[in-house]
Each structure stands twice: as C-alpha cells, then as structure tokens.
C-alpha cells in the first residue's frame, strides 16, 4: 500500500484521540478563561480506570469506557468545586501554578499506586489485527478509534449546535456578562461543561492506551499536544479543535515516517507556522 495512505490513516486515528482529549479544555478555556493544565490528568485517570477494571477485575474493555468517562467527569467537577472556582478571577500565572501542581500530584499518585512502568493492556480479540481493503492494511483498533471519535464528535456538535444547552454554552463563551444578564446561570452551565470536558478526556485517555501506552508521565507528555491543539484551533471552537487535532495527528505521524530526524520538532514547527498565520487560532474568534 502506498505509505501516504497509511500515514494519513494513522494520523487521523491519532488526531481523533487528541481531539477527544483536548475539546473539553478548549471549551472551558474559551468560556471561563480558566487555564486548566491538569486537563490531561483527567485523561490519565480514565486510562488507569480502564486498565484497573480490565486487569484486576476482569471487566470487558467496552464496559470500562463509560466508567472512564464518569471518572474523568467526577474528578473534574470535584476539583472545580474545591479549587478551580476560587481562581476564576485570579491571573493566569496563579491558575497555571495551581493546575500544574495538580499535574505533579496526579503523576506522583499514579507512580505510587501503579509504578512507573507502562501498563499492559490486552484488547479484545475482535479489535486486534488488521483488515485488508483494496491493498490497504488497516488496523482494526484504529478503524474503531476513528469511528468512535467521529460518533462522539457528531453527538457533541449536535448538542452544542442544535440544543438550547449548546446555544447557552456558546452564548456564555461569547459574552459571559450578557449571558448572566439574560438569566443564564453561567456557573451551573460551566459546571456541566467542565464535567463533560473532563469526561471526554477520561474517555480519550481510556481509548488512547492501546495506541499511545500509559504511564504516569502521560499527564505531562500529552498536555503539550493538547495545548497545541487548543491554541492552533482557537479557544472555544469545536471545529477549530477538530481541524487542529487532525492537522497535528497527521503532521506528527508524517514526521515520524518521512523525516524521523526532525520528528520531535516538526509539530512545534507546524504550531509556529499556524500561530503566525492565524494568531487567534484556525477558527478563533478573538
């Protein structure tokens, strides 16, 4: 098969994971201007929930996914109520210091409980191997990733674009003061959005294990990718995050395949070019 299709396929699967892990941060950052560097810790939590349920309790892979979502959602709402909401009116530096501290705590906690090794995970047989299609060799799990993430993206877009809840979220991202002045309870709305974003990160983390692996450094390693997605995509823009995640996923995979010597800096070059071209992000409104 021509490598370009293989690279594209892997890049899209990777991009789908990045999208799931970053979309929540994009919305909450756009909505409340709260810099939550601990967003990937929710993803890591989802990953550990899935491996624990599978390896220690023998749960099937699919049954663990909703639990990973709920774990991410609950963890994010607990942190929001306990810590984050005290820092909404604080400056970005304080928010960064608080949330990067939470990242380090989550890394230490994961290392303490699970050790620093990669977590083993056995995918169910029907998600292993690959299928051959017109000369292309497509890994079943990556096909599944693309399909699952596409489905979640559609549900998310429909929710945000076609429901009143979605319109209220967009209104609050757009102009928080006016939203409050019209009777929209922005704090509660933000709580829900925060939980949804944390839940999607948890789900993304659970789905990521088989492709990206899982160890305590996950919370920091992928934080960088997630921040690039959010800044290139534009704050608060679902479409922007999606486009940026795809671009980054494909660029990263292409770099590794074609120019391995440059692969570790290529995504930063892509980010640099994109930010210089569109300083407020691909679909950014400010």
């Amino acid at each position, binding site marked *: 098969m021509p490598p370009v299709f293989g690279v594209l396929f892997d890049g899209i699967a990777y991009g789908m994971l990045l999208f799931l892990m970053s979309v929540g941060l994009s919305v909450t950052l756009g909505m409340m201007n709260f810099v939550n560097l601990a967003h990937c810790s929710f993803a890591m939590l989802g990953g550990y929930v899935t491996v624990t349920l599978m390896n220690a309790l023998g749960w099937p892979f699919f049954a663990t996914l909703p639990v990973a979502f709920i774990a991410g959602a609950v963890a994010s709402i607990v942190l929001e109520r306990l810590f984050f909401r005290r820092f909404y009116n604080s400056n970005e530096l304080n928010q960064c210091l608080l949330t990067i501290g939470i990242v380090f705590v989550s890394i230490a906690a994961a290392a303490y409980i699970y050790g620093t090794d990669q977590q083993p995970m056995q995918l169910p047989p029907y998600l292993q191997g690959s299928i051959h299609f017109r000369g292309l060799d497509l890994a079943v799990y990556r096909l599944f990733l693309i399909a699952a993430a596409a489905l979640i993206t559609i549900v998310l877009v429909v929710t945000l674009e076609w429901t009143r809840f979605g319109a209220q979220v*967009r*209104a609050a991202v*757009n102009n928080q*003061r006016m939203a409050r002045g019209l*009777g*929209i309870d922005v704090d509660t709305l933000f709580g829900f959005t925060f939980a949804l974003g944390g839940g999607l990160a948890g789900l993304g983390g659970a789905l990521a294990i088989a492709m990206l692996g899982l160890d305590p450094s996950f919370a920091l390693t992928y934080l960088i990718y997630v921040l690039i997605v959010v800044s290139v995509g534009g704050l608060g823009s679902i479409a922007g995050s999606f486009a940026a995640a795809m671009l980054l996923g494909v660029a990263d995979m292409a770099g590794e395949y074609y120019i391995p010597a440059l692969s570790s800096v290529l995504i930063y070059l892509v980010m640099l070019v994109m930010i210089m071209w569109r300083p407020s992000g691909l679909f950014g*409104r400010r």
Partner: protein
Amino acid sequence: MAEMLLSFRDVRAGYGAGIVLDAITFDLPENGSLALLGRNGVGKSTLILTIMGMTQIGRGRIVWRGRDITTDAPHRRARAGIGWVAQEREIFSALTVEENLTVAARPGRWDLKSVYDLFPRLAERRRNFGNQLSGGEQQMLAIARALMTNPALLLLDEPLEGLAPIVVEELAAAIRRMTGEGANAFILVEQHADIALSLTQSALVIERGRIVHSGASAALLADHAALDRLVGLRLAEA
C-alpha cells in the same frame, strides 16, 4: 402605598473601590415608566448595571416587588423579571439571530412570532449570525432578545445611540408601540431627552452620580429652562 415594582433606597454603587453613584432613591410602580437623563458620564449606565447586579453596592437597599435583591446575582434578577438591553447591544456574534432570541427566552406574551411582528427585519435575517447585522438591526435584536425573556421591567440603555436618523425614527416608533401597551414597566436611558420624555411618565436627572431632579416627564418636557439647565437640551420655543 401600593407595592412598588422596583425601589432604590439610598444606594451607593460603583466599581471596586470607586464610587460612581451615591444616595440614589427612587420608586418605580408596576407598569410605570422612567426616563433616566443626564449628560455623558454621570452614572446613567452604572445605574442600569446596578439594577442588573453588575456593580459593587456600598450602601443602601434595592427592593424588587417587596423582596430585597441587593445581593442577588445578575441571572437571578433577570429570572425575577428584569430584561436588559445593554448600551453596547452585546449581541452574541456566535449565535444566529433566532438563537439570540431563544437562548434565554422564557414563556409569556412575547414569543418569536410577536417579536418578528414588531421587527419584521429580524425575521428576514433569522439565519444570519449576530456579527452580520447592521447597527440598527443589532439594536432591534438586543431589544427583541430582552423582550423574549418576558420581563416585568425592561431596561433600555441608550437604544438610539449611534444610529442613522431614519433608523432612530423606526426604532422610536417600535419602542412607542411596544411600551404604549403598558404591559411592562421600563426605564429608558437616552441622550435624545425629548424622545425619552415623550415616551415616559416620570423622569430622573442624574448629575455627578446623584439625583438632581425627579418629577413628571411631561412637566419637565414643558419646562425648557429646566431642561437646558439639567441636560443641556435647548428645544425650540413652540
């Protein structure tokens, strides 16, 4: 005394440590109408924001239908029945015209059909996004959006500011139609003092954060000397 819709009692308000308004006391009855006049920068918009709960209150009480709302959050005041048309219009640019109208709507006599009847131009532009509208259309949308919450009190902060004369006439006519029915109270901040006075029952004039005149709108409109002194408006002698 009949129960008032909105009462201010000796309110001091501002932003942070800065005091903009002081010793503000007034009453607005159900279905009443009030013109808020004064030169630029005297605190008229701050008074509107104080009604919405978006300033810091240093002293005094704000009472809504007998209930103290001095410390209520803005969204609670909006839900209690205060509709806000902000000075800068503050249309949600990421929402379509129709979404702007429905995003915070509450049931009542104003619905999509009746606001489209009032502003037919919005019906034509229902699928456009908020940032694709002219200034006049944005103002219509800001008013219609507030009406859709079916408020008992409508706050109109300089709805005619910065608009072409023909649009001013069109909007003033719509405001006259909408308020003439007397189905809700309203407070109107307006540089065009003659229009504001002709639309309202009573008037407050603010100067440097304090009320310097309070009385019937018709009486003030007829008193050209007072108008000139208070708001710098010279009306041609009839």
